[in-house]
Structures are given as C-alpha cells and as structure tokens.
C-alpha cells in the first residue's frame, strides 16, 4: 500500500519542467511555425504578383514559359525541402468581365490569372496538421498546402510591345 509523501518539496520543479516541456516548447514552436507559414504566404503572394505582371507584358505564346521562369527566379533562393516547396505555377487567360469583351479600339480585353501552389514543411505535423491519408494516427501531414493567386489585365496589343507603329524600328535599336 502506497504511503502518502511526508513532504512536497520539489513539486514546483516537476511542475516547472512539465510546463516548460509541454507548453512553452510547443507554444514557442507553434508561434514560430505560424510565422513561417505567414512568411511563405507573403513571399509567394509577391511572386504571383510579379509573375502576373510578366504575363501581361509578354507575347501570348511565351506566357507559360516566362511565368514559370519568373516564379523560379523569385522563389528560387527561398526554396528548401525543409521549408518552402513550390509545386505548380499555372497561368491562364480569363475574360475579366466573365464574357468576351473588346475595348474602344476593338482589342480583346483579357486578363491573366497566375496561381502558385506550394507546400510549407511543418514542424510537429502530428499536432498542427494531424489528418494524413484519412488517419489521425499516421503522424500527420508534414506538408501544408497553400495557394496564392494574382490577376492582371493584359496590355492590349502585343505587336507593339517593342515598337510603336507598323514600320518602326524597335525601341531599343
């Protein structure tokens, strides 16, 4: 039969250890994790804004390749398997008003939507993102998926991105 303890000295130390280990550590890392998620989100937002801007001033047949390159250029230094993992950069043409429209000069009004899909690698995924493969006990999904989008209206006449009128020389010649 267990005898009651005759003194409770050291109880505070034990409680302190429990609090530090469980709450402080988890709390601090949760805050750090949240900051990383927000940081990545801001960064990819900036990247999608910049790729959108590339899309609206390049030729139609170069839109796909140039937006991919632009996203790579901007996100490249930040990409890390331990933190930020971009998975897909998509760009597609949209009618900004929901239907085909033309401006006063009879040019099509088009917009480009850029979409960057990326993962942020999570610490403590079993706590922060516990559902993985439909199982709560699988250790969680360490990859937290986020998506960032931007949309800009295309510059109207791509024939004149480099010159001013039909027989003109290029601006930079």
């Amino acid at each position, binding site marked *: 039969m267990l005898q009651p303890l005759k003194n409770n000295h050291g109880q505070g130390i034990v409680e302190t250890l429990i609090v530090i280990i469980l709450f402080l550590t988890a709390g*601090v890392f949760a805050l750090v994790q949240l900051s990383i998620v927000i940081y990545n989100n801001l960064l990819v937002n900036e990247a999608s804004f910049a790729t959108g*801007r590339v899309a609206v001033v390049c030729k139609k047949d170069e839109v796909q390749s140039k937006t991919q390159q632009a996203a790579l250029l901007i996100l490249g230094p930040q990409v890390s398997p331990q933190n930020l993992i971009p998975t897909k950069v998509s760009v597609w043409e949209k009618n900004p008003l929901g239907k085909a429209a033309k401006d006063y000069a009879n040019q099509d009004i088009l917009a480009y939507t850029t979409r960057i899909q990326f993962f942020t690698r999570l610490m403590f995924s079993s706590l922060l993102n516990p559902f993985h493969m439909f199982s709560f006990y699988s250790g969680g999904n360490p990859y937290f998926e986020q998506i960032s989008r931007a949309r800009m209206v295309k*510059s109207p006449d791509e024939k*004149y*991105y*480099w010159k*001013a*009128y039909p027989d003109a020389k290029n*601006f930079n010649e």
Partner: protein
Amino acid sequence: MPKISTNNYHGQALPYFFMMMVVLLLCWMMIINLGRLMYEKMMVQNAADNAALSIAAYRARVLNKLGAMNYYFIGCPLYGGEDGLGNYFNLFGSLAVIAGPYGFCLQMPLPPMRVGDNKQKVVSYLDTIDHFCPGTELVNQGGEHRQAISLIRTLVDAYAGENRLQDAVRKPYPGTATLLGRLVTKVQSKNSSGENIGPEFVPLTTFSLGLKRNRSGITYYYVTGRLCISAPPIPIVLPSGFHTHFWFLEELDHKENAWLYADKKTFYKSHKITVQAVKLSSHDSNRGYPFGDRLFGGIEWPDIMAIASAATYNDGGPMFPIEDVEEKDASNKISPVIDEYKKAENKGWRAHLVPVGSGLLH
C-alpha cells in the same frame, strides 16, 4: 537569516508567461515588418506602373492633338479637308498651268492640281475654281482673293507659328509629363492625415515627342490674272475639246514655320517611357520601421524600388511625315502630311504597359 518559504507557489507561471510573450512579440514584429515590406513593394510597383502608363496616355493624347492640327490647320486649311497647301500645279515659277479635256477641271478642280505637291505656292481655293470659259479669257482678279489667301496664312500662322497653338501643346510636354509622373506616384499612398506619402518619381528616359518644326517656309501667293484657252471655243464634251488654264501669281507673304514632322533618329525611340518609383528608407512614412529594429540587431529598413515601362503605339502608322534632316531642310511636299494623317487617324495613338527589357525584365 530569513528563511525562504517554498510553500508559496503564487506567480510561478509569470516567468513562463513573459518568455512566451517575448517569443510572441518577436514573431509578431517579424510578421509586421515583412507584411509592411511586401505591401510597400507592391505599392511601389503599382506607383511605377501607373506613372509610366499615365505619361504614355498623356503622350498619346498630345500626339493625336498635334497630328490633327497638322492635318486640319496646316495640311488642309480651307481646302475641303482633302487637299492641302500648295494644291497648285506649278510649272513656270510665278506662272501656273493645268490642261485637260472640257469639263474635267469644272467638275474636279482640285485633284489634278495636287500633282504639283508644292506647298511653297499657296493660293486661294477661290482661285482654283474655274468658271466656264469659252474661248480665250484674261481676267484680272480683285482684292477678295488677296483677303482669302491672307485668311489661310493667318490660320496656318496661328497653329504653326512660334508660341502658337501647336507649340502650346507640344513644348510643355516634357515638364508636364514629369509633373504628372510625380503626382501619380505621390498619390499612390496616403497617411491617416490624408497626406500623399507615395514614393519618389525618377524618370529613366527623357520625355520627348520626337517631333520637329518644318522650317523650310511657306510662301503665299495670290492670283493677279488668269488666262483660259479652249479649243474649239465652244463647250463640247464628246469628242473632248482641249481646255487649259494659266494663272499669274504674285507673292503676298512668306512665313518660316510649317507643319510638324517626325525626326527619324528619335521618333521611334521616344515612344517608350521608363520610370522608376523609389521609396527611400529615410522617407517619413518609414519612421518607426523596422519595428523592433534594436531587438533584431539594429537592422535598417531597405530602400524599395520598382521600375516600369509603357509606350504609345498606333496600328495605323506614325501620323506625321518622317524625315531625317534639319528643320530648315525639311521637305516642302504636302502630300506626306495628308497621307500619314489619314492612314493613322482612325487608329489614333494609344498607350499600354510594355516590357522594361528583354527576357524576364518586365
């Protein structure tokens, strides 16, 4: 010696709370700083885009206005909008002549006279309208024709002369474009007091229209006499009789300035406008940033810059005759002024954003 009691546990969570708060504050500050940085970057880029596009749109309107003035008031004063100064077939200096079948000059007095294409002989439209003249006729013109050509000269001078209407639109362009760029970037952002705190405007290209004033001169003549010869001396159309006109001219006035033309060396380049918007770290609105800089080791807020290009374009053509000569050596042919304007007027100059450079420089 006082005994330290271990039986009082009040306040034991306080240190943990403070430690948590420190971490929370650090994360909070980092996110505030980063969010502010991203916001500033997008705002500065928008400011640069808007400034470039506003200047290009302004430039397009100036070109459209100047092109129309060239056409209506220099190229085609009082000539029905189709022909311009010098619609007079000049063969022998102060003697002008046309010849053709009966009825041709009566029905279409102007087109055959366009062949001359010499703006230095400017005469009144009234003089080119022939009245039917059987046989031979010598007419002394009265003072009304001098008044008519004086009116043309006054109109041309009002639009093309120094400090007149065309130059009132053309000359302020560089300064107005710069002011416009500054205004557009400044109003991009406001503080809580409603003051404009947008970035600074830095033009990276010179603002020029690439246009020059043709200074080869226009000489105005009036008709002192007209001679018509018809053979046979009765009007017959079929078979066509021969019919000719001679006009005797006398100089009324000479003006140095004529229409605007596009300078071949600079016109094609001047359409692209590249500007930079800069928000320096020392800007008033950055006071207090980075938030908590001492905690981060005294880091400095960066200067934020963005660059943008816009251009004017016209699918119809340049709208102005293009020449590669000095102003005094410019061509005196009127037809390019008319033709270039008519090709380009329906499209008009417009503005859009363009890539800053090649590759990914957007």
